[in-house]
């Protein structure tokens, strides 16, 4: 088995804007060929981190390595990175061809080599017929393709994407998302991708780094992030509709709140055994089962339905459970109405337990 080489390494990165500490003691390793997504709400520092990797922001302290080389003090163009921006940032006065070749001309690449690389990028991205046009005459999707092409022609080791799909409409975004994934499989470059869209993150990423307040809250595969969130913030952030949280007590491997008791016997505790004390349990809306599945669940109870939100493929049901309102994701065909009493089952092993004070996973 060969161990993947690290492509981008960040060591103890600090970034301060005056008094404001935007990034603090940040460490991150990105493997070669990996698709890493930086995910977080606005202001969490994810774009800032990307700009630091690109060299567009001068960092306060720490080191950045790309392909094993210390690039901390290097210019953006010397770091072996290509970057794609949210607003495309195409040079409006140049043709598509001019946009693609601008970086190569600056690097004094030979003319026929420029031609060859532009042609290849245009072929990969299927923008050959657009080469003589100016960006103003392109649609949003075409512009974004040109922007990706601009990174592509430079034959870089690492691609950086700063919310590249945010400016596109929903359908086009879904199409380009698939194309990006295909592109990554084809090129096998390291890609670091910033987004606030969790669907993009879950579908594209090999690993996701969830950020908050300039720190990485959890770094893991989409599966780990979704099913084993390391803290309450990550649990709450990922998943739509979001996770249900119930406050209660954990004693002798049994979680209790009000008259609801959930035996946590099969639960995979982080440090081996169950601890006791004030605890928050997080249950995803789809882990509350209804209908025939109720019989197979470890805990069964009845709830009163408050509100029903049909969403087409799914129906979201709001109901009272142990004094809290919970969300239940049901099949789109279900005929539940407000006021009904609904038998539900809870799969306690698939829930997540968090210490109430530290909000970390138990």
């Amino acid at each position: 088995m060969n161990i993947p080489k690290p492509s981008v390494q960040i060591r103890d990165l600090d970034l301060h804007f005056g008094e404001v500490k935007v990034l603090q003691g940040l460490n991150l390793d990105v493997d070669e060929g990996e698709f890493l997504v930086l995910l977080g709400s606005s202001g969490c520092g994810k774009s800032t981190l990307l700009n630091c990797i690109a060299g567009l922001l001068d960092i306060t302290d720490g080191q950045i390595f790309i392909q094993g080389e210390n690039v901390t003090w290097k210019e953006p163009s010397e770091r072996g990175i290509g970057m794609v921006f949210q607003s495309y940032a195409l040079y409006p006065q140049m043709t598509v061809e001019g946009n693609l070749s601008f970086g190569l001309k600056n690097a004094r690449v030979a003319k026929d080599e420029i031609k060859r690389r532009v042609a290849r990028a245009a072929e990969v991205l299927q923008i050959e017929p657009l080469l003589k046009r100016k960006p103003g005459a392109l649609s949003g999707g075409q512009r974004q393709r040109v922007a990706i092409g601009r990174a592509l022609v430079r034959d870089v080791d690492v691609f950086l994407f700063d919310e590249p799909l945010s400016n596109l409409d929903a359908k086009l975004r879904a199409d380009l998302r698939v194309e990006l994934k295909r592109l990554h499989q084809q090129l096998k470059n390291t890609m670091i991708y910033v987004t606030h869209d969790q669907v993009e993150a879950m579908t594209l990423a090999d690993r996701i780094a969830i950020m908050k307040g300039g720190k990485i809250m959890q770094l893991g595969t989409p599966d780990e992030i979704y099913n084993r969130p390391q803290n309450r913030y990550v649990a709450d952030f990922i998943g739509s509709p979001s996770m249900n949280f119930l406050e209660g007590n954990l004693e002798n491997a049994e979680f209790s709140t009000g008259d609801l008791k959930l035996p946590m016997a099969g639960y995979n505790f982080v440090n081996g055994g169950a601890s006791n004390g004030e605890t928050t349990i997080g249950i995803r809306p789809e882990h509350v089962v209804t209908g025939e599945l109720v019989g197979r669940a470890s805990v069964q109870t009845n709830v009163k339905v408050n509100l029903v939100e049909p969403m087409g493929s799914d129906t979201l049901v709001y109901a009272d459970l142990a004094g809290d309102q919970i969300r239940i994701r049901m099949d789109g065909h279900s005929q539940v109405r407000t006021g009904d009493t609904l038998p539900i089952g809870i799969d306690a092993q698939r829930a997540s337990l968090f210490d109430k004070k530290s909000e970390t996973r138990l």
Partner: protein
Amino acid sequence: MADVSPSTIDAASMAGPRGTKPKNRLSRRNIFLYGTLILISVYYLLPLYVMVVTSLKGMPEIRMGNIFSPPVEVTFEPWVKAWSEACTGLNCDGLSRGFGNSVRILIPSVALSITIASINGYALANWRFKGSEVFFTILIIGAFVPYQTMLYPIVILLREIGLMGSVWGLVLVHSVFGMPILTLLFRNYFTAMPEELFKAARVDGAGFWGIYFRIMLPMSVPIFVVAMILQVTGIWNDFLFGVIYTKPATYPMTVQLNNIVNSVQGVKEYNVNMAATLLTGLVPLVIYFISGKLFVRGIAAGAVKG
């Protein structure tokens, strides 16, 4: 979402208004609006009309005193005289000398001030350095210092560097005094440009000058036109600096115009004075007509988004 079928509407309503609403050209609003506009236009254009008419009359006709009447006999003699024969002091070669001086002052001043200010603005907008905001503030304060307080210090300065009385001394003064407002103009324009464009160019390996010439310049033609118009009119119409920092041989056109019009000896040749004034005002006027549209666009883009 049931459609309202036509049958539910009664016949009288069906025969009623349909399509574009007709406009009443002679509405009260229009009469008031256009009346005001025409009145104000006349108020502003009347002096110009008088000037043009007077400049085309001979002196006997002017003495009759009907300043609004069109010329009975059109003559271009006053224009010729104003351009090439009118006397100021001992020189009797008209405004042509002043025109030449003004052009020789104007072109380098405009070129120099715009070049420096655009680079200043670009650096302040995109290459923030430690203290750049302080630097910018100091520069802007310069725009609010009354010129008069600096007249004499500049005389000394120009004398010390040996440029007093020369065209180049005046070029320097104009460039320096144009700097605050032009830098502000350019900085605001460049700040309003998408930052990601600048970042993309840096990733693409373009440096300070590469980004300036290849990315920023081609995108900022409107603001260059605005700056050019501001500078051309400002410098061409300048009288104060011209009369102080040059000598008779290098007087700009405005100073010479003043000397022609304000001469106290002999007969007042109103027709020649009018022609001379019109000739002097022609350059800014032509610039406005050529680039009016770009001017408005650039002002809007540069000022509002700042």
